[in-house]
Every structure is written in structure tokens, then in C-alpha cells.
């Protein structure tokens, strides 16, 4: 089982978390076109390597955390 570094709870099993996927920059609410919103919703880098991701600590502190993870080796690093 891989472990994720929760800044509040320490290292915990990945099964305690919900994966919310890679961090994607949110378009500007004031100016974004429908096409830009759809790209934001659906399109992903899906990189094979180090990725910044959002996870939710469902069975722990119930906070969103940001983790850097390698998508092949599944090693993780805390980012904040």
C-alpha cells in the first residue's frame, strides 16, 4: 500500500484518501468561454512522471491536501 504525507495527520495509507487528480489551473470566471470551461473539466496532462495532485483525507482530517507523486513508481513527496 502506498502512503501519502498528510500535513495534518502524518503519513497514512492511501486507502484513507480519495483521489481528486492532477492540479489543473482554473479559468478566469470573468472571461472564460464555454470551450475553456470544458477543457478545464475534461482535458488532462496524464503525465508519466512527477505530478502535483489533490487528495481528500476522507477517513482522517477531512481536508484537501496537495501531494507530489510519481505516476509510475508511486513515490510521494509532501508539497504543503
Amino acid at each position, binding site marked *: 500500500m502506498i502512503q501519502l504525507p498528510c500535513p495534518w495527520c502524518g503519513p497514512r495509507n492511501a486507502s484513507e484518501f480519495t483521489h481528486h487528480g492532477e492540479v489543473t489551473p482554473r479559468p478566469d470566471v470573468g472571461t472564460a468561454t464555454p470551450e475553456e470551461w*470544458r477543457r478545464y473539466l*475534461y482535458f*488532462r496532462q*496524464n503525465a508519466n512522471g512527477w505530478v502535483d495532485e489533490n487528495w481528500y483525507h476522507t477517513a482522517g482530517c477531512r481536508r484537501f491536501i496537495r501531494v507530489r507523486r510519481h*505516476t509510475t513508481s508511486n513515490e510521494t513527496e509532501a508539497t504543503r
Partner: protein
Amino acid sequence: MSVGNGSHRAGNRNGKRRPQRYSAFGLFKRGLSRSDWPRVWQERPLKSTYDVVIIGGGVHGLATAYYLAANHGITNVAVLDKGYLGGGGSGRNTAILRSNYLTPEGVRFYDRSLHLYENLASELNFNVMFSQRGHMTLAHNDNSLRTLRWRAEVNKLQGVDSEVIDPAQIKELVPYLDTSTDTRYPILGALYHPPGGIIRHDAVVWGYARAADAHGVHLHQNTEVTGIETADGRVTGVRTTKGDISTPVVVNCTAGWSSLISDMAGVDMPVTTSPLQAAVTEPVKPFLGTVVVSGTLHVYVSQTDRGELVFGASVDPFTSYSMRGSLEFAEGLAGHVLELMPAVSKMRLLRQWAGLCDMTPDYSPIMGPTHVDGFHVDVGWGTYGFKAGPVSGEAMADTVANGRPPEIIAPFGIDRFEMGQLVGEKGAAAVGH
């Protein structure tokens, strides 16, 4: 020609040959003479130019190559794979075929594939062991029963044999299922789809490879694509670990790796890659005549012709390019299987494995041209793409030969995401494969 060019092989001009046909008589003869069987396909030198380059030697890439040659006479084609043919999802799946999807577009598409599969053994002269033993999707709550009823109606309208049955009928078809009402998730009904079943996945891959090779298509294993060349918005070639190739047409058939390949051509994709695991038990006598799927319990099971139970589940809970199995999967799977069939508790798991799935937001594929001229995609096959191999090959060959996608794949273009016209198949594809 470098490999296995034995004297038993007929004509060999222009790289074309007629493979020796498999037949009962041939088997008998060879049994007497005990001579070696000819190689199923040949290894040929990589040329510096092809009319079409297909990346990915799974069922989708090989079927596309075969139909390009067989239906359109386009044979100056190369299929490139970084590993061996069928080393991706095509050799790792649980081989369930069915067409009882949820959207009319989906049902029409997968049903065409099922019909092609029904005739595939004779078309390819290769026994693909398609066993149409029936497919059953269980409902454990009102909500899923409603979705099953909906699917049954959509299916019937498209002429697909599909109906909702009650627990007594389920028990009759699969006596080993626990259909009592005092379980944690009692079985309320099922969608029963008699033409569904299982197939020998490797045989499908090898059959297409052999038939494409016989038409003169080049199959290059251990040839990894490392870059795609474009000029003025057009594809001009691919770079590989075995040398550069110039070509006006590239078809991306790399499933779990497909966004990495599209990236090389500068095409963004609405795809994420997740591992999917499966497992198999020791063989026992035949007792399970139908494929059984439970979305609520995230598990499905079938019994192979050899007697093993093959289990599958949902994709792993996070994206990854790793193909390692996990203990969490085996534990969860065993628990869920026992809720369905308590009687198999003494059986032993022999092995488990994983493959990569290219998941899309609407659980439908992405097929056809892209904004880069000559760069086509046949991807987004998620956990359910093996059954679509034949129809996809046929449609992608058509797309390449005629310069535009045929009607049957029109709903699956990449532009649907920017236009917000998704083809929502989650209700029929999330666990069901």
C-alpha cells in the same frame, strides 16, 4: 524474409504470401509427420517509409491494419509496438464480449463488433474460441434495477437480445449464486444478455496479426515510438528506437499510453490512465455457465474452458502507469466474490495481474481525426475496449481510406468534449467491461 521461411509455405512474392490454412486435415497430417508448424507471422526489416503507421500492436492496431488491407487494399502499412504483440490490455483483459450498452450510439457500435466477432474465426481461419454463453448484470438496489430496465429497452429497440429477469430465473441459470434475501446486498434482478460471452483474447490478437501479415502488413515488435514529426499541421513521420519512418498517416492505438503518444503530436486528450486488476483461480469442473457481473459489489466472474474462475473488479482508486498488483485488490475481491458465491471459499487464487486503462470522462471511446492532419486516434478504451476491436478496426480503416470517419463512429470524435456532447456510458460500462 528472415524467419521461418520453410519449404511448406506457398508463394512469397512482393512480401505477400498465402499462409497455410489451418484445417482438421492439416492437424491430422501434422500429427502424423510431427513437423513444426510454420511461424504465424514474420519479422521483416523496418522500412524508411510507409503509407500508414499504426502505433500499438493490440487488438485495435492489428484489426485496423487487417481491415486496411482486406477491405481497402492498403498494404504498405506498419504496426509498431514497444513490446510484444498483445502485451498491453489486449493480452491482460478478462475477454468479456457483449453489446447491452446504455446509449443508442453505444449499442449500435458494440453490436456491430459482436457480429464481426461471431464470424471472426472463419474470416481469419483462426480459432478464437468465442463462447456465447450469456452475460448477466446483477442489480442489488432499486436504482441499478431501474438502469437495467432502461438498458433493456434501449437494447431491444436496437434489436439486441436483452431482458430483465427475476431472482428465481437467476437461480435457475446460476445455481451457485446466493439469491437469498438475508444477505448484505440481496439480488433484486438482473439484465440477461444471451449473445454475450467470453473469447480467447490472445487468439484474437494472433489471428489478426497472422491475417494482416498475410496481406503484407509489417509487424514490428520491440519498436518504441519516441517522437512524431509534423510540418504545417500535418504528420510527416515517426521516430522510433529502430530508426525514423516517414509517413503521411499515423493511427494512435496505444490505449493506456495513448495520451503520451498524442502529446508527441501536440494533441491534448481528455484521458487519464488507471490500472485495472484481474485474478484467476485454480481450475475446477464446469459449474458456472454464464458471465456474472455485480456493479454494486465491484466484481465480475466467468469460468474459462479450462475451468479456472476469472475475476475482475473496478479500476484502482487512483491514476497510475504502474502495472503492479496489490494485496488490497485481492482482499477486496475475495470478500465480494464470497458474498455472491459462498461455495467457492475453498478455491485458491493462482495469480493476479494488472493492465493500463485509458479512462475518458463519459466512458466512451475517442475515435477519428484530430486537428493534426493525418494523425488519427482510436483510444479511450478504458476497461471495456477488447469487445470493440473488430468494429474499431473496420471503422478506423474506413476513416484512413476515405479521409473521414464513417457514421458508426461519428458520435465518438474528440471535438465532443469541447462542444459538451458527451456519450454517457457510465451506467453500462463502469464495472461491467
